[in-house]
């Protein structure tokens, strides 16, 4: 079966007063029906821009898009606006980061969902209203028939995000793109919301792209993980493989900076030294090079995103023991990576465990 979503060498360039910003540079991935893909990375890594570009929300006079985004076999990147509108909120729905500002403050929440339903389906206002109430009940909003008539400011942050989720589900999407859906919420609400989102996705076999910097969340929900940095994908692997055998030095750094409850920490929580690259004037070669403790002369060339190779096997490039479909963008060979990782004392098993435990 063809994948639900295929992204091929997606590139997003913003023309700004300061010059051209390559916010997304050659991002490719595929997502099957009902699967969860997590995109992780620091702020400014291009993960949100990638997500927004999937449904053409970055389109503007100052934006240059290239590559292809195929949803259900249809290219969306070059689709005319009215074709795109049918997909937005219909087959592909989006949940935004900040539920405090993502809802229109002067419209009743029910009306905002009804508006979406009636944009995509020719049904009466009262039918749409009934469905809205049912949706709000499904996402765990108490007394939905009353609350549907309330305004966003009468809801807490968590409840507003539930409203957003209900809106996203309203037209039976096949893909939900959730852009840091819990970042703006407090910790207890975060896990409730994610529990519900996870359950809803499983119930309805809708695929999910989860953009986050919460590694625990990734460990818990994702089938696949894509690590982004400076607009490029640095590592792309099935979630288990990524946690057990992370291959890119940036991924190690990310995993090391996850707070751990299961062991005593000496000193400060490790952070990644330096700051993310300016995409207006990015470093040559690998974008992580200036911050990477293992960089060497070859890193001034851009490494390809590929399965790591092990040159040990007699000049003939053969795959090491890594999992199928585990891609990373680093010049180091597989063996060296594993040795360096060991020297870095990154206890990958424990990280993976801590992540899943922490989230549970």
């Amino acid at each position, binding site marked *: 079966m063809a994948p639900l979503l295929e992204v091929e060498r997606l590139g997003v360039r913003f023309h700004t007063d300061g010059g051209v910003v390559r916010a997304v540079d050659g991002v490719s991935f595929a997502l099957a029906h009902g699967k969860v893909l997590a995109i992780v990375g620091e702020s400014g890594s291009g993960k949100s821009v990638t997500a927004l570009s999937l*449904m053409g929300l970055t389109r503007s006079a100052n934006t240059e898009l290239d590559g292809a985004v195929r949803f259900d076999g249809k290219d969306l990147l070059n689709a005319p606006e009215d074709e795109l509108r049918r997909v937005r909120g219909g087959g592909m729905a989006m949940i935004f980061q900040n539920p405090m500002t993502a809802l229109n403050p002067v419209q009743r929440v029910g009306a905002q969902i009804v508006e979406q339903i009636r944009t995509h389906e020719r049904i009466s206002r009262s039918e749409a209203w009934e469905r809205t109430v049912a949706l709000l009940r499904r996402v765990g909003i108490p007394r939905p028939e009353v609350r549907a008539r309330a305004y966003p400011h009468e809801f807490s942050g968590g409840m507003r995000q539930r409203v957003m989720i209900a809106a996203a589900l309203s037209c039976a999407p096949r893909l939900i793109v959730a852009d840091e859906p819990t970042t703006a919420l407090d910790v207890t609400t975060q896990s409730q919301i994610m529990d519900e989102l996870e359950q809803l996705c499983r119930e309805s076999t809708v695929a999910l792209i989860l953009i986050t910097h919460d590694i625990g969340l990734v460990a818990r929900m994702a089938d696949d993980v894509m690590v982004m940095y400076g607009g490029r994908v640095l590592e792309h692997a099935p979630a288990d493989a990524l946690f057990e055998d992370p291959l890119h030095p940036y991924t190690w750094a990310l995993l090391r900076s996850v707070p751990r409850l299961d062991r005593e920490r000496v000193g400060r929580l490790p952070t990644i030294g330096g700051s993310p690259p300016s995409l207006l004037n990015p470093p040559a070669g690998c974008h992580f090079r200036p911050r990477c403790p293992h960089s060497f002369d070859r890193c001034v060339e851009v490494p390809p995103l590929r399965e790591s190779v092990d040159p040990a096997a007699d000049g003939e490039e053969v795959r090491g023991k890594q999992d199928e479909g585990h891609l990373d963008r680093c010049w180091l060979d597989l063996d060296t990576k594993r040795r360096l990782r060991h020297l870095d004392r990154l206890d990958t098993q424990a990280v993976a465990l801590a992540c899943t435990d922490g989230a549970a």
Partner: protein
Amino acid sequence: MARFALRRLFQAVIVLFFVSVFTFLIFQVIPDGTPALRLAGKSATPQTIAAVVRQWGFNKPIWVQYADMMGRIFTGSVISYSEHVNVLSQIERGLPATLSLAIGAGVIWFVFAVVVGALCAVRAGHFIDRLLTLLSLTAISAPTFVVGALGLYFLAWRVHVFPLSGYVPLSQSVGQWFMHLVLPWISLSVVYIGLYSRVLRSTMLDNMHEDYVRTARAKGLSERKILIRHVLRTSLIPIVSMWGLDFAGVIGGGAILVEVVFNLDGVGQYAAESIQALDVPPLMVIVMYGAVLVVLIAALVDVLYVWLDPRVRLEA
């Protein structure tokens, strides 16, 4: 709601008190403000003047005079100095013209400002935006009497599109009423159209970048619906509050110039004539009536505001 109304009523009383005291005092201190001399007529004997002073109570302490005046205002028996007629009936006579002018202009400037402002915001940076911006700035800088005079000269004097001046009651002829008011409406509205459309344009441009607009787009709404239901709807909030104050201001005195230029014989014109004659009683009443309207309309706008922006509560 009851608390809100009560509070507003209390505010109104305070406003009216201060407005009346200040108006009264101003006419006590301006030079040649002695009304007895003018009331007694030309070449009056000292005895006549003394009689007038006694008759009108000008010899009483000033606060007693003020109290007398206020008493007469509340019983509706204020008599003007210059024509010895009941002020209230004069105001009643002028009210239809003033209200026709103010309400018509208020509607016109609101509607046109929304159209112009929205058009500028949608086409920001394009030719039409620049053209309308230029026109708006011109409108803002043009005084009402200049626009009125130009309109009169070109559209009533040189080309007889509109009548030169005067007011025809609505009950007499709708067409004539309309034709007589077109130029006054335009001259009164032009400044506000310019001002409001500028404010609306920038509010809309700000709101276009709000998260909920992106949400609306992600829901699959057409650009037109996004613009009207999400961007324009929220951007109207500041415009409405401005409109409330300005509309009250126009009714409470801002229409004077236009009424005089077009000889509409409304309340404003009556006020202007009374000022020239230093005729205190009509001015007191007109100022009070203006203040009452300002307070009343401000309260109405607050109610409207709650409807527009549910985050606002009627409490104060």
